[in-house]
């Protein structure tokens, strides 16, 4: 017994044991703060738990999940999320690629430009939200000011109160904040492309645009996919910007799925229903991600 204990604490002999000891606290912490809530909320989604009866769990089968597909408010919030995800990821991908290509080129101040481009990504969502809220203000907003000075508008527009403009500007704020993430990943991919390929293309008479489509794009497919997958997951889970910019308004025009779940959990106290909706959102995220991965593999095989 004594020898057994001695052997267990003899870390000099085994790296594995030391690794296990050092990893254990983190592993336990992850189980406590990630695995446990995930499992607990999954169980809750099959019950009828509200805050008022939080200690009484009645199994109700899949009725909460059925409710998600018949609730017009949740369906509306999914549509809002879908629009948001589609446009933010598309714009970030296009802009991110263009900016990354520009930042790969050698020019004076490139290092400063590369550092500056990170700033929006490093800014907390709440700060981004507040900043855009003031920029878009219907009375003192700088965007209204410039648009009026340029003669594009006659009167200031209440962008965030408007059915037409509220969603596009939430998307704009998110694109501004999230594009640098795409830039970083795509730029990293660009830097792995050997210059020889461009030199050879140049000798063969290929134009810059042709080289971009035949060399650059195919070789940055992988980082583009990675950034698209992560960008999609971030966009599906987006909450802060909606909360700060519009709180879901006017009406429910900008109430996305996560804000709707939050309202249900912490304002309406429908804990089981909120859990079920969270899992439906998770399912959508997983389907989208799996779809991306399948496409990526197919392209790689080809």
């Amino acid at each position, binding site marked *: 017994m004594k020898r057994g204990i001695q052997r267990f*604490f*003899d*870390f*000099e002999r085994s790296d594995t044991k*030391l690794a296990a*000891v050092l990893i254990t606290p983190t592993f336990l912490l992850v189980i406590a703060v990630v695995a446990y809530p995930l499992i607990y909320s999954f169980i809750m989604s099959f019950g009828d738990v509200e*805050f*008022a*009866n*939080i*200690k009484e769990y009645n199994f109700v089968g899949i009725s909460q999940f059925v409710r998600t597909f018949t609730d017009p*408010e949740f369906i509306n919030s999914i549509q809002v999320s879908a629009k948001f995800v589609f446009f933010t990821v598309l714009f970030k991908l296009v802009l991110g690629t263009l900016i990354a290509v520009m930042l790969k080129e050698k020019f004076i101040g490139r290092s400063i430009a590369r550092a500056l481009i990170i700033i929006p990504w490093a800014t907390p969502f709440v700060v981004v939200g507040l900043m855009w*809220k003031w920029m878009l*203000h*219907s*009375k003192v907003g700088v965007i209204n000011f410039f648009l009026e000075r340029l003669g594009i508008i006659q009167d200031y*527009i*209440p962008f*965030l*109160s*408007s*059915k037409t403009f*509220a969603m596009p500007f939430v998307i704009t704020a998110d694109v501004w904040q999230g594009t640098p993430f795409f830039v970083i990943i795509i730029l990293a991919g660009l830097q792995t492309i050997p210059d020889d390929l461009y030199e050879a293309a140049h000798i063969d008479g290929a134009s810059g645009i042709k080289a971009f489509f035949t060399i650059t794009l195919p070789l940055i497919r992988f980082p583009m996919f990675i950034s698209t997958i992560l960008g999609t997951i971030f966009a599906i889970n987006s909450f802060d910007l909606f909360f700060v*910019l*519009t*709180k*879901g*308004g*006017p*009406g*429910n025009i900008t*109430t996305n799925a996560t804000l709707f779940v939050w*309202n249900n959990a*912490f*304002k*309406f*106290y429908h804990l089981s229903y909120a859990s079920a909706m969270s899992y439906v959102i998770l399912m959508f995220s997983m389907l989208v991600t799996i779809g991306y991965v399948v496409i990526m593999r197919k392209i790689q095989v080809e």
Partner: protein
Amino acid sequence: MKKFIVIGLVLLVSVLLFASGKKEKEQPEGKSEFEGQTIVVKLSPDMAMSGLKGVTEQFEKEYGVTVDYNEIGWDVWFPQQAQILATDEPLDVMGNGKNAWIEFPDKLTPLTDIFPDVFDEMVPELVEYSTLRGEVMAVPFLPSYQIMFYNKSIFKDAGAEIPETWDEFLVTLKKLNDFNGNYNYVADWTTENYFLNFILTMQSAGVDEYNWIDGKLVFNFDDPGTVKAVEFHKQLLDQDLIDPGVLVQLQQEVSSLFDQGDIAMMSMWEMYAGFLTDEQFENTGYFAFPGMKAGMTGTLDGHEYLMIPKSAENPELAAEYIRYIASYKNTKERSIVDKSIPVYAAQFKDQEIIDALPYLPVIDLVKKNLADQFPPIKSTYELRIETATQIHPAILGEISIKEAVEGLQEFADAQESVPQ
């Protein structure tokens, strides 16, 4: 080497655990039957105002007890209080609004027999407000009504009159806007809070938000007066009298805009007067929200109360603490220093308080026309969000007002009522 790293880590963790275990708060000195005991108190900062922390420290000293005193901002406190009540988390004193006893009536200690003497002296309508099925559930501590604040200088310079009706309000607002080029009326019409202004305006059209008819809760959202109220809001936007950004303007932004001194009117809780600087306070006047016709008005309640959850570990000391902080003397001090509305009937005749609270006549005028921000249903918040979902498109001109109020009525009719 590896062995030393592991031993070092174990020692470090042990030392930290030992040190944290040794940390115990020193008990203050004092003499009372409760000496050495502790209670936990949680409430919002607006309820605490500037003086409650000091009064609590005084209580600790006098009684020789420890009060674990926590002020928590509303955004966090609202879900947290529900969690505390739902899970029976130990808490001795809770500051909250009507939603607590509407949503969690069985989680609160009935107080009728604990503070009979206090309730006898307090303002009857405040005690009645917290009475559920014959039991008083909470002690009035921060009565609050929404009224109109106005900037005296702007009104004077623009030659504007205090409006009493909606028509007069439109005229006054136009005059003020033309005078300084600003939108001179600010309010919180966000998705989350539009409901409050909506029911307030309904009330000022003479429509009660709901009635009990033969024991059944009946909402009045499809009343012709409600349609008029929505038309009034639409007029404000259509005539460009109110900032179209009002739909995303939070309460904090509203008060901050008014504080800057170049906006003439805001709809706000009267307690906000306590947060004005001396200069702002001197330059601020108050009037009742204008009515659809002369003599009509409306207001909202934002009352906050002190409660003892059933999960309290020391209900006796909690009751003593409430009795102490809600005493005549301490609440009088709150009224004078923090401009809070009195809770004792006799305080309304106290000249020192009357002198300190210039809005008291307005409160007298409006409090009989009270819209209930917590109607007796368990889904108040869903009703709030649904109100904005239905009515915002109507005031933006995307759907008809009739369609919007009917949609809201249909939603409200489907809600489960809480028997009174």
